[in-house]
């Protein structure tokens, strides 16, 4: 769709222009007509859908997402954002929860049907810092965003999953199979320890002799904030993938803004879709 000239202009732009927004790496963005290769039930309200995407698949970095146009939902004007759960040279997969009309419409689709997607969107997680033990924190569908990076990392670490009940805990077996240590906490105690995942994490951290860890987290905002606070208190980095309502997904409409700390102004808006969704905990100016 895009001429190569346009693309090279675009790269030049980043080299020569002072842009008010912070960019962390650039990927060529594409729009692709994909075909559903597989659509399977995972557990409870969660489903996995694999899409043929030879254009976007090879470009995806962990923590990035796609904008998916729900077919046969004629009265919707917005795409729906989903983290890339798996990606290879031929395809991308999403792990999604049915929560409303868009996800319900997606859920009715069968293998062979086509879906229009744009991606890869957002900055994704940074490379893990060598020497630090990677720690992953996931809540609900947040587990999807964490999978891709774990699959590419040599170094194995610990992953913490939290949720209300057993059916909110996703991908635990996949992390185990990759050689990761898995810690689970559910509020009702139906799997793992009973209570909040922050408590499990605190106990784990207290037992360690060092805090040479680096956190990568995706899940509900309350959970992200709790881990962000710990990162500041205990002096480690926490990369948080933030979830905001989005309209364009590419940085044009300024719907998805999030308050970022700014040394001069106190705070400044950043676009979750373009400048994020991953922010280091110290970057975020949390609401009181």
């Amino acid at each position, binding site marked *: 769709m895009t001429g190569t000239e346009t693309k090279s202009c675009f790269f030049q*732009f980043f080299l020569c222009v002072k842009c*008010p927004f912070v960019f962390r790496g650039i990927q060529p963005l594409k729009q692709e007509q994909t075909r559903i290769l597989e659509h399977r039930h995972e557990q409870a309200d969660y489903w996995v859908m694999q899409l043929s995407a030879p254009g976007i698949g090879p470009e995806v970095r962990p923590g990035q997402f796609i904008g998916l146009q729900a077919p046969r939902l004629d009265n919707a004007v917005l795409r729906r954002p989903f983290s890339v759960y798996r990606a290879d040279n031929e395809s991308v997969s999403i792990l999604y929860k049915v929560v409303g009309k868009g996800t319900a419409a997606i859920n009715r689709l069968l293998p062979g049907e086509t879906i229009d997607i744009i991606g890869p969107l957002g900055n994704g997680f940074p490379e893990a810092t060598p020497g630090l033990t990677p720690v992953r924190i996931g809540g609900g569908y947040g587990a999807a965003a964490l999978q891709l990076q774990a699959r590419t990392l040599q170094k194995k670490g610990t992953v913490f999953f939290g949720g209300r009940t057993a059916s909110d805990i996703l991908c635990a077996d996949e992390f185990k199979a990759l050689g990761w240590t898995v810690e689970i906490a559910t509020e009702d105690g139906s799997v793992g320890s009973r209570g909040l995942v922050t408590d499990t994490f605190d106990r784990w951290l207290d037992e360690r002799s060092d805090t040479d860890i680096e956190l990568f987290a995706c899940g509900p905002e309350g959970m992200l904030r709790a881990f962000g606070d710990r990162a500041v208190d205990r002096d480690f980095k926490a990369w948080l993938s933030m979830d905001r309502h989005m309209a364009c997904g590419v940085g044009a409409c300024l719907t998805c803004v999030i308050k970022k700390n700014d040394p001069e102004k106190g705070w400044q808006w950043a676009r979750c879709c373009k400048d994020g969704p991953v922010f280091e905990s110290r970057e975020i100016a949390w609401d009181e």
Partner: protein
Amino acid sequence: MSDIKPDMSVNIGGLQMKNPVTVASGTFGYGPEYAELVDLNRLGAITVKGICAEPHTGNQTPRTFETRCGMLNAIGLPGPGAKGFIESYGEFLAQYDLPVIVNVWGKRVEEYGRVVEMLSDEPIVSAFEVNVSCPNVKEGGSLYGTDTKSFASVIETVRAKTAKPLIPKLAPNVSDITLFAKTAEDCGADAISIMNSYPAMAINIETRKPELANRSGGLSGPAIKPIAIKLVWEAARAVSIPVIGMGGISCAEDAIEFIIAGASAVAVGTANFTDPSTVIRVIDGIEAYLIRHDIPSIGDLCGTVL
């Protein structure tokens, strides 16, 4: 059917466009956001997000909400200010064969004058679209678009600051759009654009809170298209300056309907979010229509409603 390519070019009050299609302000950023998905050199023009003289932070979140066949927005016109716009995007935009329509706004009449004055000599700026109809800022905004006297003072003020094409963007929520169209013409505007999003609101019945932080916002998307068609039809007959039509355009057929109603050019807005390829499909579709109907030039279709 003829095999000669129809003439797609239009002149909008001095603004020369290679085809009659631009994008609606606020739905396409400042250019780079969609540049990897859309070949910007193909657009008739780009209309950038609203700019005022100084940087502005905009509204709290949530800023948009999807409704049936449309969406509400109350972004609140955040932006880098006139200087920031040129610094951040001037060089980028200059690389394209692309007229740039800068959408401007102010909280007071003098602020409209200031932003136009600051930008008028910039070579990258091809024309000004004057937003007097934003439903989402407390000061100024839609007041200037719904009261002919205040409207006239804004247009006269900016007219005095620039010789570049001036395109006031009219508010849809007025009892007689022709009064505003004529006032614009009388004050020296070169064209008008119609319409901005329509003041609207949605409430969550579980929390009983409005869905937008700003409480109300503006409705855009396919839901407003029939409203926009009527406004364009009425205004185009009342004045001799060209009209840029917009509101819910999501395919070439929608755009052609606007042109038949009297629009000389059209803008694609919310549909960029739905499908970034819309604007290119609209350009190609208009051309295919002209060929199919043996119409030699886009101008021959304008205002041909029976």
